[in-house]
């Protein structure tokens, strides 16, 4: 269990800032309407006693008609008052709970958005979604319902007890004596149900995660005809969740008979003790009726206690999960004294003796070792190497997705850690390997980094990345909505849109992580050409497998097992007869190379 700076309730109180006053007003209102609830029957029973059922009813009615009307008026008036108060109190609680929900939800979104890679590797999408939706809803419910119910119970029990004690303390004591028993039962219940609620939150997250992965991976599921397997797998999650739910609810039901019996014991005790008092003339009939008319005000809250405790435990378990995100701190964040207004970078990128390893990776050795190189403004650096050699990790150090544990990454001679993340990343255009588009229009996707981009510019960058032609052929052109993750587009098309998106922010440093791997050669050539003639100055760092991409670079780096083993121009590296030479050979096809040789 993590510990947080604040307890759950203190945290909740903090979230109510700005609406604490009306919340307390709502609690006060709850007390008031419950008070009215207790007093209104008094008026109606008076009407019945004095004007309808008593011996002098007819006489009273004849002589005190105004009193009758007053009582009737009071009854109606107070009920209307109560009804109005109830409405406003309910709305008050709803309003505050929605404000809290709104505030925490936005805060969590902000938090999630700004986390480091380790966070995303730890929490799965479905899990995070559960926290922002289902778990947070339990927090909302606490504010909207649980607190109101607790207030109601306290108000009813408190007022009635006081009234009882004033009337006859011995009888009152006999009735209240059940209290500690109930409390004991509820505490036992709490002990047993609390871990179940924790488990339930886990199971819900599990269910959400499983469903979300299945939906995201629907293509693979179909490709392997694994529908039955998936259904079976989901069934387990579903059953798990359903059974935990059952177990939680049944836990209450094992305690329910005790509480219910205790609540029912009240009128029985009243009848025994009150009856004996009556027989011994220690109590008047009127007092007895008053007692018996109000036992519900103690019995009903007792009955509610179980569900209140249940909901409270749900809040307890859920708020833990919410607070876990709420208080999480990314290890990569803005520096305390950032470089002020760096503006547009010149674009010089320098790695000085950089080594890197994933923190929790006990695998043998670092991912990157002693990487040093310099890319001057406007230059093109190509990086090549085997699958998993650390290329992607290397370029991710530039926008600070990770920080190196040794050495430094400099831009324009300044360590990247000294910029604010926003200033730093604003200057970097990155097209990742795993292309992720949003379910938005193509236009919206290209203008993702700069929503104010004019449509001419969107078209221009689409042209640069050789995307304009196929976009034009789409049913609604730039307004075509591409599905989540860009479905409906081929891999090459997605890559080109992702490239246009990176270019559209006119970055001073452009990083392409194998962005043209699924693009056909002719198109790639077009892209290479336009990259050479961009209308803004830009340093390019390109990861590529294709020689056609690398050969015109100012410098080619070969990465092997996290080290730079070769560095130089195309010609230099060919002359070296190393990894690069071999790669060229392979791609040309051995015989072709021989023929040309």
């Amino acid at each position: 269990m993590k510990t947080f700076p604040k307890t759950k309730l203190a945290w909740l109180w903090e979230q109510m800032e700005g609406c604490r006053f009306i919340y307390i007003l709502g609690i006060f209102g709850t007390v008031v309407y419950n008070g009215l609830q207790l007093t209104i029957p008094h008026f109606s029973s008076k009407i019945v006693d004095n004007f309808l059922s008593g011996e002098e009813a007819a006489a009273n009615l004849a002589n005190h008609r105004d009193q009758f009307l007053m009582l009737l008026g009071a009854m109606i008036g107070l009920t209307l008052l109560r009804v109005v108060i109830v409405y406003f109190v309910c709305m008050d609680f709803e309003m505050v709970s929605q404000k809290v929900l709104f505030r925490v939800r936005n805060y969590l979104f902000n938090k999630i958005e700004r986390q480091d890679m380790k966070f995303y590797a730890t929490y799965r999408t479905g899990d995070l979604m559960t926290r922002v939706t289902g778990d947070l809803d339990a927090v909302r419910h606490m504010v909207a319902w649980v607190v109101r119910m607790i207030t109601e119970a306290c108000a009813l029990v408190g007022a009635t007890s006081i009234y009882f004690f004033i009337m006859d303390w011995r009888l009152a004591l006999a009735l209240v004596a059940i209290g500690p028993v109930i409390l004991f039962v509820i505490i036992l219940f709490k002990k047993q149900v609390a871990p179940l609620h924790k488990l339930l939150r886990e199971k819900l997250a599990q269910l959400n995660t499983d469903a979300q992965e299945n939906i995201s991976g629907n293509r693979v599921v179909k490709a392997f005809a694994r529908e039955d397997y998936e259904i079976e797998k989901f069934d387990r999650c579903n059953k798990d969740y359903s059974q935990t739910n059952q177990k939680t609810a049944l836990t209450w039901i094992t305690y329910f008979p005790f509480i219910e019996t205790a609540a029912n014991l009240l009128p029985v005790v009243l009848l025994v003790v009150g009856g004996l008092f009556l027989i011994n003339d220690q109590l008047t009939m009127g007092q007895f009726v008053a007692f018996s008319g109000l036992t519900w005000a103690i019995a009903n809250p007792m009955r509610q206690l179980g569900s209140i405790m249940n909901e409270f435990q749900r809040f307890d378990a859920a708020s833990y999960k919410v607070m876990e995100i709420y208080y999480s701190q990314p290890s990569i964040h803005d520096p305390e004294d950032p470089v002020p207004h760096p503006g547009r970078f010149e674009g010089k990128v320098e790695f000085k003796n950089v080594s890197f390893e994933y923190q929790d990776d006990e695998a043998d050795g670092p991912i990157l070792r002693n990487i040093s190189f310099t890319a001057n403004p406007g230059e093109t650096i190509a990086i090549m190497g085997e699958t998993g050699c650390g290329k992607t990790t290397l370029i991710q150090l530039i926008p600070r997705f990770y920080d190196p544990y040794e050495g430094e990454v400099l831009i324009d001679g300044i360590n990247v850690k000294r910029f604010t993340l926003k200033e730093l990343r604003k200057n970097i255009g990155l097209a990742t390997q795993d292309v992720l588009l949003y379910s938005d229009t193509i236009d919206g996707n290209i203008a993702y980094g700069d929503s104010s981009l004019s449509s001419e510019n969107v078209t221009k960058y689409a042209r640069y990345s050789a995307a304009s032609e196929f976009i034009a052929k789409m049913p609604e052109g730039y307004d075509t909505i591409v599905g989540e993750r860009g479905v409906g587009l081929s891999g090459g098309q997605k890559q080109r849109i992702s490239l246009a998106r990176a270019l559209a922010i006119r970055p001073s440093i452009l990083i392409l992580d194998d962005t043209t791997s699924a693009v056909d050669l002719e198109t790639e050539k077009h892209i290479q050409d336009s990259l050479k003639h961009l209308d803004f100055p830009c340093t390019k760092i390109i990861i590529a497998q294709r020689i056609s991409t690398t050969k015109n670079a100012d410098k080619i780096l070969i990465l092997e097992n996290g080290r730079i083993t070769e560095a130089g121009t195309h010609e230099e590296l060919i002359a070296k007869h190393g990894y690069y030479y071999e790669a060229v050979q392979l791609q040309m096809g051995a015989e072709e190379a021989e023929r040309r040789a």
Partner: protein
Amino acid sequence: MADHRRNTYKEDEILEEPFDFKHLLRASVYIKKYAGKMLFAMTLSGIGGAVGLLAPMINQQALDIAIPNKDKDMLFRLVIFLVIIYVTSVIFATIRSRIMVKVSQNIIFDIRTDIFAHLQKLPFQYYDDRPHGKILIRVVNYVNSVSDMLSNGLINVILEIFNLIFIIIFMFIVDVKLSLVVMAGVPVLFVFMMWIKNRQRKAWQAVSNKNSNLNAYLQENIVGARITQIFAREDENADIFQVLSERCRKSWMKAVEYSNLVWPGIDGISVFVRAAIYFTGLLIIGQGNVTLGTIVAVSSYAARFWQPIMNLGNIFNNFINNIAYLERIFETLDEPVTVDDAPDAGDMPPIRGKVTFENVTFAYEPGKNVLKNVSFTVEPGESVALVGPTGAGKSTIVNLISRFYNVTEGRVLIDDQDISQVTLHSLRSQMGIMLQDSFIFSGTIEDNIRYGKLDASRDEIVRASQTVCANDFIMRMPDGYSTEVKERGSLLSQGQKQLISFARTLLSDPAILVLDEATSSIDVQTERNLQQGLNAMLKGRTSFIIAHRLSTIKNCDKIMYIDDGGIVECGTHEELMAKKGFYYKLYTAQMENIA
């Protein structure tokens, strides 16, 4: 389909259906299964309630007879009787709750199982057309919401209605005129409820829509957090989220504005009715037709009459609220399965590998043909390469072989068997398809590879990995094959993911192998090694390979150059080179580029 447009977080999903209780009727499918149990639970509640009615009578006896007579024995006897009554009703209530907990959880389970199973049948297109967050919210959140309505809600409605009928009968037996006064409140209530119903329904639909939009945006942003960060768009996205969040809040407040009116509304009406009884009662008394006792009796019935109505009002509230979710669930269940087994579909016999396209035309959207009149035949064991510009229709062709989509015109045959006439499962389970997007499930690497063959032994998995050159890097991982890969394989490079999904495909031992840009992110050296393993693999299997690096496909038996939705050239590498057409141009361009 005519007006086909994908949905995003920005738009609500339209649902053109007037409100009616038919959704509830339809839900009876789920209830039927438990009808016996529910009936039993209801009977228990009924008996428990009836037994509970004895309590006031015993109280009365005690107060009227035992106490005035100072008869302590009788008092104790009555108390014991009272205890028995209460204990009985507690036992009944406990049993009912036990039954209903199970029933309601089972109903949730059933609905969720159905919706999930149905989702598995829905074609790519369904998933392509809407944000996944909007699908997810239905499976998880909405289903959770409706369970109580379908179990306890339903029982309570029936009980309360019975309750109401009894009270009305009793009331009328006592006095007709006063009963009519009591009932006079009902039309008022009816008008009130009708007024509120329509507003409430719209309001709750809005809530479900706004939540759905929020969920969609949330999901996309969690998945795309890295993209957000690289474009430093955190603030802008937070603003968008805040707007969506605000809409949720507003729609909720609007909805509860009406919902919260129901209870006080009924309460208010009932008080007026009580006052009216007193008032008319008094007027009638003057005429001597009614005794005071009658008025007392009717006024107490009036209170009892309105209690179930108030309860019904609350349940009604709940129904209206949840029907907004229920209709979304049914909408998903009603989503037509466009790619489904034909009614008399048999199993695909073991595939030898002949693939034929007969005049195949295909359009994702009507009128926009992606493939036009494509015909070709591939003999068993042949390897076919598809080359050509991106977006030419290469992926579409291979998708049609697995019947991920239905052809618009023409036929696709495997071993001369029209694939639309065999079961999807028997067809696809014999195919190995490696998609462009190599999706990795969270779980161990071993689990991911095993996805291709669920009963594969560790040995088989290692062998498949060795064939695709994945074994080396897997062994270098902290826990080897047991290393947990997180969602979508973060911490694995794209190339590594491709190798794993390659191993997965190989393991499934397919009769027909489809590689769609399967090796695009794999470096050339690894690819060369992989090729050797692959060549052994390909022997005897029909295979379709889409690749841009021509060195990888040169040795294929057949190369098809696809452009503009058709086959432009077809032949072996040598033939096409001799032809000096599109392929020749492509190939020489590539070589020149390298050299």
